[in-house]
């Protein structure tokens, strides 16, 4: 077996099984006895075959694997296209890869991966060079994520080639850590060659830092220090903005900015500004050089700062209809609450903005009016920053506004879904997914479906239809109640989305499904590029009759899109048409559309609010009679720990009207009615309206705290630093404080932070600032075992870290290259990235199935045949056929040219004939004997016929003469003897007359009466004579006897003269 591995490229996965091969000799010994009855040749053949079967079985058990070497090479170019790479080098990159691929070997492949914040495959590994005309703009060039690009390159390589990554980068990674990926690539035998993109910005100015107090008191004048770094003397102007408004830095000048001349190195500038309002204050400074050419990178000429002024209790009231909610704002103001009324379109609602308010009121607003990041910000604002959030109802709020499943629902005291109320009508939503034409179509198809699952109620139905190549149009998610979201999402993640030929079949299936539900609201959403054939008119009419609406989302702009079919469907079914040019909008559209099926959560029966508690911590003493009626409510479910002082009585129990609770550090309130012009007219004119809401708002709002700590923040490189100077009222240092909390980044991701004491009363910590934007730190501090106080400070990262890199990071590139990679110098010819100097790729193909199918089974059958088929001719034919099948199909010769067939046939014949050489004589005899016997049989049959005729004639004559006796045509004694011998020979096992040899007498074949004859004893062999000789003699004598008898009979009849 091991010899096999030397001769052929075979390896064994579990080689210890090969020890079993040692049992082969034992098998031979045991088998000799059982095969003793066979001829020597057959016996040895059987032993050899049996041994082969054993060895083949051992090989299969040992996991024999074919190794196949492939000499071809795949090269993946990973191009750093982040902002830190100068434009000129980007052009050089492209020229380099084109030139490198110009003369690439025909069997090799070249692929291209773009490297930035998000890696993209620009060309799959392909033969024949570079096939795109122009590289598309990179995704998120503000970052460099080498790690992700290397992962993508590794995943893109074809399996059966040698692999080389050619990295063209400056090594300034600011997301992820590529070293692990480079090491993984090296371990996998992938070469990583690096061309360092060398640059150095000699003419460069950048705003290094803006130092502002992270926290200040109301009306405090804060110092602001700017640090500007320049590589050469340069003149220009500094401009400064406070919350977006320019600050006059030089009152004597007509311009708002200040003209400066910067010297080489660090330049410091300082100013002071009073901060009046208690909120977050944003600062921005810009440097504008007089000669723009003297500055290489313009993007880093900006610095930002953030100071949070504590104190004050402002409330933000966000609404889509300011006129409708002006009554609430005015009523609160009359109660002394400082209210800022904003249209939802104008509300910024990032975390820093929210931080400026003690509470936020969302008045009848749907979820899709806010971006996902704003949902996260509202949730974080409550849980981590201690803010208050009040949601007021209406036809667009709570579950009816698509808020189900959002982070906001998590912090609210009511669940927006309704699980146990059977009288609530259900909704049903079918998504028809045809996103395959969109770049990353499967991803977006999956995302929108997931969003829909999260948005609709568990009482609603959801189903997803798509076209797949295996099954055609089918339910990827069968239409079902949205109760088991996890299982439905798992199915969605396994979806395959193919190119749908028409909408007809799909929509018919959707209509049939929707009609089979008990839903009151039936809605369909099609997402497609529109190039499928339109549905039948009958389908659209059936939808109209069944009140099934269908909204359509056209995607694929920039590739191609056929709008008219989709527009037509939406128009005819009362749905909406969306021309979606940015896939990022898709989830929002689906949230908006999904809420259509949730209209059923609105209960517009007027009602008298029920006071559930006689006393409320928030509202004090209340009675039902005090409260005006309301015209409607959004049905929700109170969460177990929520207080529900007001409710609506229903047949099944109560629906919460007012609910509140503590959520994390903050408080939230749900008032599920509202919509003052429609449901709450009598409330808006109620005299206690202002007092009622002021009590609620004051309970929810965060109380301002004044910290006794000095906190500063700063950015250095890709890290942010926070420093706390802790002094008490007597200017003594506060030691051993516990200071910790969370850093919330611009994408609302929270990370824990803990400050360490680094000196008397001085505490410090740092954290990663990979994203540009506003960071908020929510810190709790206090002595061990004492009540903790809160402190919030901000940090601003003005521009991408890409613009802070002024030179190439060779050290990182050297690490990535490792020991196996090469430095490239940018000369495509000299670099020769297609050099075949890597070890060839070895692909492994397990062959145990092949062994079982083509070795063990055939050999086993041959082994059986050897013992059971008592003829070497038959055996040889069997072997010949098995060998031929093995050669043709086992080795795949049948796929090859005709001479392969010929060769296989000849070889099989050769083996077959060599096996039956001992039987060639008898075979030839068989043919000659057959021919002779056939001739004789014909002759005999003719004679028999003529004799029968004679008998017939004689009978007629006797009848004519009046005689009745009639002779019978009986077989002769010789014929009887021959039949006896034949029967005897048939049971003569091991004798020479058997299968493969002719019968001795063809009378049987030609007909003729028979009668049983007593068995005749076979003559004993004379000493010294072989059985064959005896048989031949016997045969000859029998033939002679038969001939003699026949002759005699003919003569006798001739003598009779009849």
């Amino acid at each position: 077996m091991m010899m096999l591995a030397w001769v052929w490229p075979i390896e064994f996965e579990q080689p210890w099984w090969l020890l079993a091969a040692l049992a082969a000799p034992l098998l031979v010994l045991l088998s000799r006895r059982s095969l003793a009855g066979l001829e020597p040749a057959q016996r040895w053949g059987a032993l050899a075959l049996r041994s082969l079967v054993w060895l083949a079985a051992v090989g299969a058990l040992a996991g024999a694997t074919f190794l196949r070497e492939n000499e071809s090479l795949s090269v993946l170019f990973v191009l750093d296209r982040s902002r830190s790479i100068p434009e000129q080098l980007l052009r050089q990159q492209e020229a380099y890869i084109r030139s490198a691929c110009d003369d690439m070997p025909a069997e090799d492949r070249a692929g291209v991966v773009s490297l930035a914040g998000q890696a993209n495959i620009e060309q799959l590994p392909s033969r024949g060079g570079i096939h795109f005309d122009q590289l598309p703009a990179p995704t998120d060039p503000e970052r460099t994520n080498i790690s992700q690009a290397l992962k993508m390159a590794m995943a893109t390589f074809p399996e059966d080639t040698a692999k080389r990554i050619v990295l063209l980068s400056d090594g300034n990674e600011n997301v992820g850590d590529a070293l692990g990926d480079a090491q993984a690539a090296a371990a996998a035998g992938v070469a990583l060659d690096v061309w360092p993109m060398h640059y150095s910005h000699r003419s460069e100015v950048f705003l290094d830092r803006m130092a502002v107090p992270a926290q200040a008191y109301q009306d405090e004048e804060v110092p602001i220090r700017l640090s500007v770094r320049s590589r050469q003397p340069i003149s220009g102007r500094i401009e400064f903005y406070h919350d977006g408004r320019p600050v006059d830095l030089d009152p004597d000048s007509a311009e708002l900015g200040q003209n400066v001349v910067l010297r080489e190195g660090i330049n410091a500038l300082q100013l002071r500004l009073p901060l009046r309002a208690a909120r977050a204050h944003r600062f921005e400074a810009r440097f504008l050089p007089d000669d723009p050419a003297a500055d290489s990178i313009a993007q880093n000429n900006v610095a930002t700062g953030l100071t949070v002024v504590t104190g004050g209790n402002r409330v933000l009231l966000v609404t889509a209809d300011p006129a409708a909610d002006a009554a609430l704002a005015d009523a609160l103001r009359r109660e002394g609450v400082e209210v800022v009324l904003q249209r939802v379109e104008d509300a910024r609602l990032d975390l820093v903005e929210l931080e400026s308010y003690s509470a936020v009121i969302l008045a009848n607003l749907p979820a899709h009016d806010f971006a996902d990041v704003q949902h996260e910000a509202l949730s974080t604002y409550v849980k981590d920053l201690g803010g208050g959030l009040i949601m007021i109802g209406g036809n667009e709020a709570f579950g009816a506004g698509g808020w189900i499943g959002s982070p906001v629902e998590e912090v609210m005291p009511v669940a927006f879904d309704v699980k146990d109320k059977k009288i609530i009508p259900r909704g049903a939503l079918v998504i028809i997914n045809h996103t395959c034409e969109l770049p990353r179509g499967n991803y977006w198809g999956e995302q929108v479906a997931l969003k829909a699952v999260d948005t609709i109620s568990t009482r609603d139905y959801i189903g997803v239809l798509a076209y797949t190549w295996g099954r055609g149009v089918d339910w990827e998610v069968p239409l079902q109640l949205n109760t088991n979201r996890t299982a439905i999402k798992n199915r969605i993640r396994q979806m395959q989305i193919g190119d749908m030929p028409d909408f007809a079949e799909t929509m018919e299936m959707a209509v049939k499904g929707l009609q089979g539900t008990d839903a009151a609201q039936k809605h369909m959403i099609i997402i497609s590029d529109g190039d499928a054939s339109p549905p039948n008119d009958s389908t659209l009419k059936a939808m109209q009759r069944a009140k099934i609406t269908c909204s359509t989302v056209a995607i694929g702009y920039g590739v191609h899109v056929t709008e008219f079919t989709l527009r037509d469907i939406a128009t005819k079914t009362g749905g909406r048409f969306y021309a979606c040019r940015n896939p990022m909008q898709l989830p929002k559209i689906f949230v908006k559309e999904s809420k259509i099926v949730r209209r059923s959560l609105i209960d517009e029966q007027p009602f008298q609010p029920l006071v559930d508690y006689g006393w409320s911590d928030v509202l004090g003493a209340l009675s039902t009679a005090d409260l005006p009626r309301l015209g409607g409510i959004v049905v929700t479910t109170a969460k177990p720990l929520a207080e529900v002082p007001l409710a609506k009585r229903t047949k099944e129990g109560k629906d919460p009207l007012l609910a509140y609770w503590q959520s994390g550090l903050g408080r939230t309130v749900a008032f599920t009615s509202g919509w003052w012009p429609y449901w709450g007219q009598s409330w808006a004119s109620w005299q206690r309206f202002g007092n009622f809401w002021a009590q609620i708002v004051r309970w929810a709002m965060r109380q301002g705290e004044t910290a006794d700590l000095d906190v500063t923040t700063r950015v250095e490189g890709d890290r942010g630093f926070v420093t706390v100077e802790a002094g008490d009222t007597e200017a003594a240092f506060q030691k051993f404080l516990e200071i910790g909390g969370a850093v919330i980044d611009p994408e609302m991701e929270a990370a824990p932070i803990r400050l360490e004491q680094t000196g008397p009363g001085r505490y410090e910590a740092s954290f990663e600032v990979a994203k540009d934007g506003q960071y908020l730190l929510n810190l709790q501090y206090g002595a061990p075992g004492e009540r903790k106080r809160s402190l919030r400070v901000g940090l601003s990262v003005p521009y991408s870290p890409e613009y802070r890199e002024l030179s190439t990071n060779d050290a990182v590139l050297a690490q990535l290259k490792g020991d196996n990679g090469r430095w490239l110098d940018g000369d495509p010819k000299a670099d020769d990235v297609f050099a075949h100097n890597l070890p060839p790729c070895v692909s492994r193909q397990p062959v145990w199935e092949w062994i079982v199918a083509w070795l063990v089974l055939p050999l086993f059958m041959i082994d059986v045949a050897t013992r059971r088929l008592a003829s070497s001719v038959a055996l040889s034919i069997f072997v010949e056929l098995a060998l031929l099948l093995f050669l043709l199909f086992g080795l795949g010769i049948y796929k090859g040219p005709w001479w392969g067939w010929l060769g296989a046939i000849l070889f099989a014949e050769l083996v077959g004939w060599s096996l039956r050489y001992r039987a060639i004589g008898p075979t030839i005899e068989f043919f000659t004997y057959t021919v002779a016997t056939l001739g004789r049989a014909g002759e005999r049959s003719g004679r028999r016929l003529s004799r029968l005729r004679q008998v017939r004639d004689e009978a007629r004559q006797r009848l004519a003469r009046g005689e009745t006796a009639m002779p019978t045509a009986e077989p002769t004694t010789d014929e009887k003897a021959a039949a006896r011998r034949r029967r005897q020979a048939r049971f003569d096992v091991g004798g020479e007359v058997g299968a493969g040899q002719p019968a001795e007498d063809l009378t049987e074949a030609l007909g003729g009466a028979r009668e049983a004859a007593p068995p005749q004893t076979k003559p004993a062999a004379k000493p010294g004579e072989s059985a064959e000789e005896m048989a031949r003699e016997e045969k000859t004598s029998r033939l002679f006897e038969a001939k003699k008898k026949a002759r005699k009979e003919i003569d006798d009849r001739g003598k009779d003269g009849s």
Partner: protein
Amino acid sequence: MRVLAGCLIVGGALYGCGPSLPPAEPEFVFGETGLGPGEFSYPRAIAVAPDDAVFVVDKSGRIQRFDPDGNVETVWHMPEYAAGKPTGMTVHPDGRLFVADTHYNRVLVFDRDGEELARFGEAGTGPGQFMLPTDVALDASGRIYVSEYGGNDRISRFSPDFEFELSFGGPESGAARLTRPAGMAFDEEGMLWVADACNHRLCRFNPEGKLLQTIGEMGRDQGQLRYPYDIDLLDDGTLVVCEYGNNRLQWFSPTGESLGIWGGAGRRPGQMAYPWGVARNNAGRLYVVDSGNNRVQALKP
């Protein structure tokens, strides 16, 4: 034993040389995923020239010419392809390649090396205008038939000089109404066979657009069709249909009797994923565009 061996050999020989249906395994396969010569990115249409050269267009907007054994000879790009790629082609007896430039609503004519010789058609619903043309067919007198969908769903006939003559199969055609006619071929009698994809049937028209015969109904069984996307004819008039929806080829007699099927959904040779087109060469070899597997499978005559 000899009798058994003889039966095996004779049976095997008969199986391999069947007159109408090829063996389950393709004769050979060419193409793999990629953008290089001889590689495909979702090929969607195929045409065979009188000299047996094979043209294939894919979703990278490239037309590649292969020799009959699948060796690539020439590659060129469509003039514009950002908005979409062709889905149908045919070769004139004089060697000119007619391409239905689907998403540009026109027909382009190339020589065998990719030089553009002519173009006609524009977007619209009027006579001679196109909405998403799918295929081109040429009759014996050189007249050009263009099928289209996208609302027009009809076949328009043009003179050899690209002058519009007539159209048929449109929305007002009653039983002859087509829904996404996706492929066309002429038979020996000069009648036009159309793969009426979204009606899941084959239609036979005379050159004036009169419907003469239909074959098939929607389904997965033999004799039924799901989204037939292309059609070609053998010398004896047998129809070969490429079924996108059933991932197979199906043979029909001219009278509509199903003679057999080949393929099935899968990734292995002899299986297909989203097949879009079929074409035959002079020797009767069939080439089927196995789009989802980025390859062309060649079937023995």
